[in-house]
């Protein structure tokens, strides 16, 4: 509960929403270019940008105490480690 949060205007929320819609359009457009492996990377990169926008603004992380963002690293690092180690097995077995 932070007062700074009060300062997000309706216009700012709509701006974030518009950015999310545009990024969705870009994802669909890039997928249509058939870039092969690169298309997966761009799709995931755009999805991560969208997720960051949702986390920071819609979920208010930008206006919370830093503790919330630090905590968020716990599941992200756990998941990245599990996925990373699994792929070491998949690729080098």
């Amino acid at each position: 509960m932070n007062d700074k949060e009060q300062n997000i205007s309706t216009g700012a929320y709509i701006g974030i929403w518009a950015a999310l819609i545009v990024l969705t359009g870009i994802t669909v457009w890039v997928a249509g270019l058939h870039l092969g492996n690169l298309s997966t990377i761009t799709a995931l990169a755009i999805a991560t940008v969208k997720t960051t926008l949702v986390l920071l603004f819609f979920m208010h992380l930008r206006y919370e105490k830093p503790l919330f963002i630090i905590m968020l690293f716990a599941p992200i690092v756990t998941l990245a480690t599990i996925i990373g180690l699994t792929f070491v097995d998949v690729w080098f077995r």
Partner: protein
Amino acid sequence: MAELAKTSEAVHRDYTGAKIGMWLFLFTEILLFGGLFLVYAVYRTKHQADFHTAAAELSVAIGAANTMILLTSSLTMALAIAAIRRSAKTASIVFQSLTILFAVIFLVNKYFEWGAKIGHGLYPNSPELLAQSHGTILFYGLYYVMTGLHALHVLIGIGLLLTMLILTVRDRITNTDFVKLENSGLYWHLVDIVWIYLFPLLYLIT
């Protein structure tokens, strides 16, 4: 005395604690869906061609439409919380109702999408699907489990948001006590984030 009780109640409200609790729950959700994304990633590496042809069967239009619908519902959810903070009760009720409406539209689309696939004989363990390649069977298995688990979250979200709507109407959620609505919002945005990844991975990898 009644005034004093009211003040001390306000003092003991722990918003940070309530929100940390909600985030910890969301972390378990991230790992739950994360496990499915891992299975998807590994099988996709092993059956790349099959996954590509199977994904091409899914309707990009319906997937993109559902993405827009969920993103818009996230906007109305955020606006509902902003409204209650400025004591705009009616606006908050309208935005909460819109969020629920978008969630219902999402599920209706999902019903038609699944219905069409099942109509073509493509459902887990169907004879038609079992006759196809191993990768295709895996893709559709993951498609049904991942979108199914996500749809279940949307359904639970509708129940949660209806509860919050009733609490707002009854003045149990107000501009000084809105953490329930805010935490419901956090849940709803996480459901949106899961779909942000599901959409390109299931529908767009051709």
